[in-house]
């Protein structure tokens, strides 16, 4: 699908090239962007589909990675110009000396429920809070990532000691099975898996780990490499302009079928389920305050270390 829309956008551009041969003498700038097939990347796909990138002379080549942290090594290795990544993974890389820079916001928590993360339990479990989870097993897709971090914050917010909760790793698609089968007592899941899990009728949602602990908190961003940004700043200016038009397009259509259809197309999530899915707040910028909050939370839950000043990590396209 993305392939087809990309081609269509190209053809449109080809036509305009014919019309004004002198202006478009140079070829399109190709950019490979690493994405995850999740709701948060809707603006990027919208900008591709609407031809915003083509209008800026950029051809986007998306590459899907299974996990959030897989794209960043590809960025280091020079495979990608930009990577969609959750904030925790990015900051862990920064902590280890990687020259990551935020080049655009991607998604934040909403100001209140619903948001895209949820704590799910079996209906008959009687578990209502983090306190109830002490000594029990909770699943995250990965430990030490944003899902886990916000989940631990929720445990603490609802009266539990996060150190007394055992975390295990289970891929999102298997979480509902593990919960129903009694392998774990709770899971921290993400949309659209939350909607799918709730469809079984045996699972209920007891918490919103992001909007209940820190309304509007940071979640995911687009990341580039410092040296590349210093050399090719102009390309990233154009790239961010196009992406941010995509953000506007998405934000104008929140709750409308056109947006759900777009997401369903690139993520392959069936349309019927899309109607029950909660969406994040789509962001253009990254603020030092939200990164400071993230780093503070990370320090609190054991991801300690020295992190550079947040301001220095935010490229001008994300300010």
């Amino acid at each position: 699908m993305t392939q087809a829309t990309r081609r269509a956008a190209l053809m449109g551009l080809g036509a305009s090239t014919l019309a004004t041969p002198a202006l478009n003498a140079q070829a399109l700038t190709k950019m490979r962007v690493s994405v995850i097939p999740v709701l948060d990347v809707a603006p990027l796909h919208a900008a591709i589909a609407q031809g915003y990138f083509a209008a800026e002379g950029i051809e986007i080549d998306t590459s899907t990675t299974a996990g959030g942290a897989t794209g960043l090594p590809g960025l280091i290795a020079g495979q990608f110009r930009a990577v969609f990544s959750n904030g925790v993974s990015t900051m862990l890389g920064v902590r280890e000396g990687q020259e990551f820079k935020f080049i655009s916001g991607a998604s934040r928590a909403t100001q209140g429920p619903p948001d895209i993360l949820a704590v799910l339990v079996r209906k008959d479990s009687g578990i209502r809070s983090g306190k109830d989870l002490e000594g029990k097993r909770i699943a995250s897709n990965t430990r030490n990532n944003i899902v886990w971090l916000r989940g631990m914050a929720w445990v603490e917010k609802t009266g539990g000691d996060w150190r007394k909760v055992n975390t295990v790793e289970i891929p999102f698609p298997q979480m509902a099975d593990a919960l129903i089968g009694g392998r774990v007592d709770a899971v921290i899941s993400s949309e659209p898996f939350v909607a799918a899990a709730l469809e079984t009728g045996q699972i209920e949602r007891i918490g919103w780990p992001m909007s209940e602990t820190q309304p509007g908190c940071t979640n995911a961003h687009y990341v580039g490499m410092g040296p590349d940004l210093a050399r090719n700043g102009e390309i990233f200016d154009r790239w961010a302009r196009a992406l941010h038009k995509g953000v506007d397009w998405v934000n104008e259509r929140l709750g409308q079928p056109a947006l759900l259809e777009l997401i369903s197309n690139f993520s392959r999530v069936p349309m019927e389920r899309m109607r029950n899915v909660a969406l994040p707040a789509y962001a253009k910028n990254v603020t030092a305050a939200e990164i400071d909050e993230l780093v503070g939370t990370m320090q609190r839950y054991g991801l300690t270390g020295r992190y550079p000043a947040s301001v220095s990590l935010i490229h001008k396209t994300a300010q």
Partner: protein
Amino acid sequence: MRHSPGILVLVLVIGFLEFAVDAGMIRRALLPPPSATAEVLWELLSTGEFLPPLLSTLKLVFAGFFLGSAIGVALGTAMGISPAMFRLFEPLVELIRPIPKSALVPPLMLFLGIDDAMKITSVTLVVTFPVLLNTLQGVRGVDRVMLDAARTHGWGLGHTLRHMILPAALPFILAGMRVSLGLAMVLAVLSEMLAGQGGLGFLILDMQRSFQLRQMYAWLVILAVLGLLLNSIFLLAERRALFWQRR
């Protein structure tokens, strides 16, 4: 030792990497200097921190390896001596065999959860097939003359199995087990990467995700040495078991 020039080469390569990283020819972001990795490795070893993950992986490998080998030998022998058993299981074996066992992890998670049961089962599955096929081949390859000799001596099935068929098939069975040992390690590491909370596979992935490359390489070295050790031990055991086969 026989290998000394090769070990010298290894040392030279490591030395070169150290120099190359130092001189900036290789980015530290990709490869920390080997000395830094060695430091971490030493710390892991001297504090004993390496032991629990190692044992956790080892447990999976061993449990799956022995279970899978036992199933493979039993089923392979049954299929080798009984045409009825062969007809019953052959299509199923042929169908399941080519399925990438890693693709079976999601349904296995559904039925067995995320803990050792699932992990041991996936290791067992991957171990079973090479052993089964080799056992089948070995059992079928037993010399007719030997079987006739057993018949003329009036040996029963059990006796013939224990003293003739299995020893004759042993070289094949062990060859299959050697292949399976490597696969068992792969699946153990893979299942640790996919679910759960411990083991070498989990640590390697976790260190990569958090960009702690020195730690990642240190755990990788531990894993490599473990594999080397297991393989050498197996070869040694195989040589002893097949003493009569030496040329």
